[in-house]
């Protein structure tokens, strides 16, 4: 067990050990380069064009929760953590990031995620593992810090983490636990990994600046969304809704948008007649959100398509646009092809998954191809993307309205 975790190298073993005496330290050595991680470790990746990219296997990681601490001694424990640390260390925090889950073993998994998120987003992490159905009423807490060498390469930058295990009736203490551990003056982002359930505690929602969730995991989209919207209404301040299912689409949206940056290509908005979107197993909602985005931004209306393999829409000139939905593979979105009267716009994921190949072609011309970043369907990458973007989510809400009945 070690409360301070260091990144990027062996020299910190001594510091971690000296800080916590005889406690064993296990450092996590993770590639920091841009070499893509293979979906399977045995081979390289291939783009749709047939280019081969070398990959490396993802390293295995083990992590612990840190130092157990009594609830009323958390502040003192954190101070001690810093007073006893050695070497050049800086505590950094830009946000309070609370993570709530009811999954068994979520504390360890989320600690692992937070360690990686904190590398790019210094934060006060509050990780909560809850089991409201437990017959025992129990509460436990741990403190730790995630440290990595900053860009300047001389100083370790550390983010604190406080972890809580709440069982039985103690789960109701969630708001008071979160509120008492906030780094003052910093915004509170709550990453809610479980299903929303009634009653929604208005006291909790009133403190949240951003509510992060992943609608891809929802079985009943409308019921869940209703609860989120209720919470939003009851909050005294405006909560920004951040759906990681929407974040998954960022790179596909950028890739499709860039076809139309030049005003002379805008006539295609009226001329798109059909499209095909390929999505992975359990990612139908992601594909539908993409269609919702097109509809919202291009002024299309959904005419029908609930549960079918295609959706029919009507564009602003009342012409029909038919989008086929095909489930294939594991990637959230594998490809999207749109046809206007004479041009084909194509985006496809390279097999290694971190690049998109985009092309625009006329029937009489060879296509111009380009590679763009694809992002990854990985919780850390999605959260990093989300935390970097900031701002309101007006386009998301508009897109949602367009396809709500289809989700």
């Amino acid at each position: 067990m070690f409360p301070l975790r260091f990144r990027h190298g062996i020299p910190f073993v001594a510091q971690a050990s000296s800080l916590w005496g005889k406690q064993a330290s296990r450092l996590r050595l993770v590639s920091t380069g841009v070499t893509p991680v293979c979906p399977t470790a045995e081979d390289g990746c291939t783009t749709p064009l047939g280019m081969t990219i070398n990959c490396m296997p993802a390293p295995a990681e083990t992590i612990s929760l840190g130092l157990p601490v009594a609830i009323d001694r958390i502040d003192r424990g954190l101070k001690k953590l810093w007073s006893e640390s050695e070497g050049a260390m800086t505590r950094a925090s830009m946000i309070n990031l609370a993570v709530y889950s009811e999954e068994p073993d979520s504390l360890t998994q989320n600690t692992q995620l937070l360690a990686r998120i904190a590398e790019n987003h210094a934060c006060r992490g509050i990780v909560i593992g809850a089991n409201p159905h437990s017959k025992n009423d129990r509460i436990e807490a741990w403190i730790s810090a995630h440290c990595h060498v900053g860009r300047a390469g001389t100083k370790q930058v550390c983010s604190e983490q406080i972890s809580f295990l709440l069982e039985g009736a103690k789960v109701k203490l969630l708001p008071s636990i979160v509120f008492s551990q906030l780094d003052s003056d910093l915004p509170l982002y709550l990453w809610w990994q479980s299903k929303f359930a009634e009653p929604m505690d208005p006291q909790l929602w009133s403190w949240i600046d951003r509510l992060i969730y992943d609608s891809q995991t929802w079985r009943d989209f409308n019921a869940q969304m209703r609860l989120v919207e209720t919470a939003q209404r009851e909050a005294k301040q405006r909560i920004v809704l951040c759906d990681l299912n929407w974040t998954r689409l960022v790179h596909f949206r950028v890739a499709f948008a860039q076809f139309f940056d030049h005003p002379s290509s805008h006539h295609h908005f009226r001329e798109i007649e059909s499209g095909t979107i390929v999505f992975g197993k359990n990612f139908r909602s992601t594909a539908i959100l993409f269609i919702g985005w097109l509809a919202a931004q291009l002024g299309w209306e959904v005419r029908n398509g609930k549960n079918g393999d295609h959706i029919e829409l009507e564009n602003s000139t009342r012409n029909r646009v038919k989008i086929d939905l095909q489930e294939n593979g594991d990637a959230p979105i594998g490809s999207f092809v749109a046809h206007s009267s004479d041009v084909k716009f194509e985006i496809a994921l390279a097999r290694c998954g971190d690049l998109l190949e985009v092309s625009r072609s006329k029937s009489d011309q060879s296509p111009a191809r380009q590679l763009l970043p694809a992002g990854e369907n990985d919780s850390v990458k999605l959260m990093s993307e989300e935390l970097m973007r900031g701002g309101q989510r007006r386009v998301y809400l508009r897109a949602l309205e367009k396809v709500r009945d289809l989700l």
Partner: protein
Amino acid sequence: MTNRSAEQGVNPLREGLSTRAVPQPCAIVIFGATGDLTHRKLIPALYNLAADGELPPAVAVVGFARRPKTGDEFRNELGETTKQFSRQEVRDDIWKTFSQSLSYHQSEFEDESGYRSLVKRLDQLDEERGTRGNRLFYFAAAPEQFEPILKNLKAAGLSKAKEGSWARVIIEKPFGRDLASAQELNRVVSNSFSEDQTYRIDHFLGKETAQNILVLRFANAIFEPIWNARYIDHIQITAAETLGVEGRAGYYETAGALRDMVQNHLLQLLCLVAMEAPTDLSADSIRDEKVKVVRSLRRYRPEEITKWVVRSQYTVGAINAEPVPAYREEEKVNPNSETETYVALRLLLDTWRWSEVPIYLRVGKRLPKSATEISVHFKKAPMVLFNRDSAEHDQNVLVIRIQPDEGISLRMMAKIPGTSLRIEPVKMDFHYGTSFGKASPEAYERLLLDAMSGDATLFARRDEVEEAWGFIDTIESAWSNKDAPPLTYYPAGSWGPEEADELLARDGRTWRRL
């Protein structure tokens, strides 16, 4: 939307995805494509933009230079140097796609036929790569080549864009070596390109922290009310480097620190610190305010130059415990050179806001460490209560670190814990590298993207450049007089000559310890 956005020429699909103007498809023609700037900065910057997905797909880069070379040789050379100088690791797959946009056009800069064939090549790229008739000409060649290049571009019809397209020119510093030559250069440029087509690059303005100066000042309510002569005692701007001339002796001998750094980079930083709030964030609103700062610089009378400007040159010394030669012993430097490698100045701005607030600039080579920063020194609190035995350290100082270790710090007074009342300065420190894990893009990445987007905010305008030269000329002309103050000397590895310390000591101040 959407439809309305499209009618206004805005891509509705970009909403919420990008807060900056989107770069447009174009052909980038680099004159001087075999030179250092292309290899070290421009192509690595373009590669990084491509790797980050910021570069439009329809961009083609044409290297224009004299040396005979095939396209493959050109691409291979650039591949090697990009691996060496790129901010992020070069991926073979991305390089392979990106390098398909690179081609080489061999021609003498004076050869008209080379430009006629360039026209054909660019038209071909419009067809093949969809560059849509947009042209960005980057002058990475020696300044003496600018005129023939500009004349030939005009003669070939390349300075004028086709309808619905644009043609822009990026010019690297130096923008002249005095007011007359800057005016002449601007005249030559304006014969071929209008001012709104001309982008004068000053890479200091592309730095994240330089851009953050305006955010710090105008997005925070606490600074602007005290950002004036009533509360600010003085300002110091320092650009120190440990390096010597490093192979630039030929140029440096004709320029010196005043022309090389003060006329452009330091005065640009001064403008950002001292300007009034612009009416909006458009390029011209910001540049209108910046040029007013340069105009308001109080001109020195010839007899004042000795008193308020220090020029100096480094002698033999040591940097990081390594012996280094004197400037006059450097390769290609005249052994009797009078070129200054260090300048310190005391400036005043004749504006209501800055009335009688001294601004001290210093720039030098072979100083003990490399650092560029602006420090704003506030007036002391009244000398009653806690400040009876006030020392200089009792001032509040706001420091904006431009490079390295970008960030902002604020020095304030605090009570030392204990039963007695002892007060000491403490520092609140914000580091970009600590708070934001993501590395900032290189200045050239941002500036190239801005030029492709048509955003000239971070580029110098003609009047700014000429006003700055007008100010610098008064100093240069005094230095060229027979009775000019003698050049002073400082050992390499020191913080400059004693005269620079005296410059502040006369006002009862000292340079900030870096």
